[in-house]
């Protein structure tokens, strides 16, 4: 067995990482095709405020992150569907608003600490057994929701008006979609970090889209790219002592550049 797997914390990081690697692009795909890529970053910043609240009140930050981001996801969708504010502006509002909240709570708790830094950029050594169980359980929930409601999610993303005319409860589907995104983001920040989770949700998807295939094929490709990024990134992170989030996203970026080059060479 490889030396890397002799450490329990590394095994936990791989298990949680693969769970995230599957779920992140599944959610990301629906966000990207709806021109809603910024949603992942917004929810990540909301989760960060959730982490700050958790650290302040000394409860597990993963729980407060999930709670706050799910709550915010409902607020975002309600404001967006009211059409009083542009969808993009709603995201900007929540992104900076939650960052302000996080900073205030942190200054109340007398400054930044190392633990907080690990939430910003992702850390593999800090995944506890509880974190692992919560991550895997919620990843399974998100995964099953997407598989079971695939045809509805696809239709509501492809043409919301047509879907509604066909009798689909598009509003409810949209709410569920952002709620699943909120859960996926909150469970991912332990390993990938607040600042980089958006990248893991979006980059594997846009890489897969370069191959010009149908929706399902693109979705499967994006999951393959994402898992590859997580595994390769975690290895790099361990052997070269790098922040896991940075390493994972860098691999995802390399896959994207490769995909782009592959398409370019195919067209010539």
């Amino acid at each position, binding site marked *: 067995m490889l030396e890397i797997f002799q450490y329990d914390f590394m095994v936990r990081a791989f298990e949680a990482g693969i769970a995230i690697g599957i779920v992140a692009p599944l959610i990301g795909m629906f966000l990207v095709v709806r021109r809603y890529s910024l949603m992942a970053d917004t929810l990540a910043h909301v989760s960060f405020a959730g982490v700050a609240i958790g650290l302040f009140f000394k409860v597990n930050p993963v729980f407060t992150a999930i709670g706050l981001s799910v709550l915010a996801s409902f607020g975002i969708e309600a404001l967006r569907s009211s059409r009083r504010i542009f969808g993009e502006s709603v995201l900007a509002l929540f992104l900076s608003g939650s960052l302000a909240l996080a900073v205030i709570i942190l200054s109340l708790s007398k400054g930044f600490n190392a633990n907080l830094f690990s939430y910003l950029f992702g850390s593999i050594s800090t995944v506890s057994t509880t974190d692992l169980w919560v991550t895997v359980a919620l990843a399974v929930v998100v995964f099953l929701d997407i598989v*079971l409601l695939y045809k509805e999610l*696809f*239709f509501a993303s492809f043409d919301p008006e047509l879907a*509604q005319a*066909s009798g689909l409860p598009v509003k409810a589907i949209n709410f569920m979609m952002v709620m699943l995104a909120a859960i996926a983001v909150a469970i991912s920040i332990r390993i990938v970090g607040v600042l980089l989770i958006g990248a893991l949700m979006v980059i594997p998807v846009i890489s897969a889209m370069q191959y010009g295939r149908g*929706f399902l094929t693109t979705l499967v490709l994006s999951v393959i790219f994402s898992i590859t990024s997580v595994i390769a990134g975690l290895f790099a992170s361990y052997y070269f002592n790098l922040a896991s989030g940075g390493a994972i996203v860098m691999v995802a970026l390399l896959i994207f550049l490769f995909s782009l080059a592959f398409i370019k060479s195919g067209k010539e």
Partner: protein
Amino acid sequence: MRDKLAEPYIELSNVSFSYDHTPVIEKLSFTVRKGEYLGIIGPNGGGKTTLIKIILGLLHPTEGAVLLFGKDRHDFKEKHRIGYVPQRVTQADREFPATVFEVVRTGRIPRLGFFQKFTAKDIEVVERAMKIAGIERYRDTLVGNLSGGERQRVFIARALASEPDVLILDEPTVGVDIGAQKTFYEFLASLNRDHNLTIIFISHDVDAVSQETKTVLCLNHTLVCHGLPRDLLNEHVLERLYGKHSHLVNHK
């Protein structure tokens, strides 16, 4: 008249609709019967698209009653009986990664429940719909890679896949080049004639409507005229619809 005896599919009585107190449709009443091929014409902002959205249940009338297949719109659940082909002028779905098959298949969704999977029969109907629309060779092509006319057929195939009784098309020839338009109208006529499909077809193109459809409805906030194209489409009606200085061009 023969058509008067046919089963009423869509009935509107005294329907009014306003956006923020601005009336768009006022006291509109008409009936669409089985087998009809109805063209709806009228100026932009005259309420054509609003009317379609009311029929589809996307907008709710401020006043009046809408009966669909004999049922009040609130009780109407068989959404698959109305196939809708929306106006496709946006570029949005050009980049959407979906194959023709994946899009046409969504037509089966109104016939399936949540969590239900597509069956072999569903796939069979989807394949047949693609064949009728003449796009079966594009089955695995991305919708965004097709021309305007081909994409229009994808959306018609999608509507046909739900095996509807009524097909509603909103400005179907926008973005379709002139050559393809002729074939397209022949295709619509054959759907009405050979597949016994009731068709409602919205257009700003008075010529096309007068030549292609069996009946015509002129809408400018309220009903301006309703009947046979040759009786109605004269200078007098057009003036009421579009204002003075409107002329029928190239009316054969």
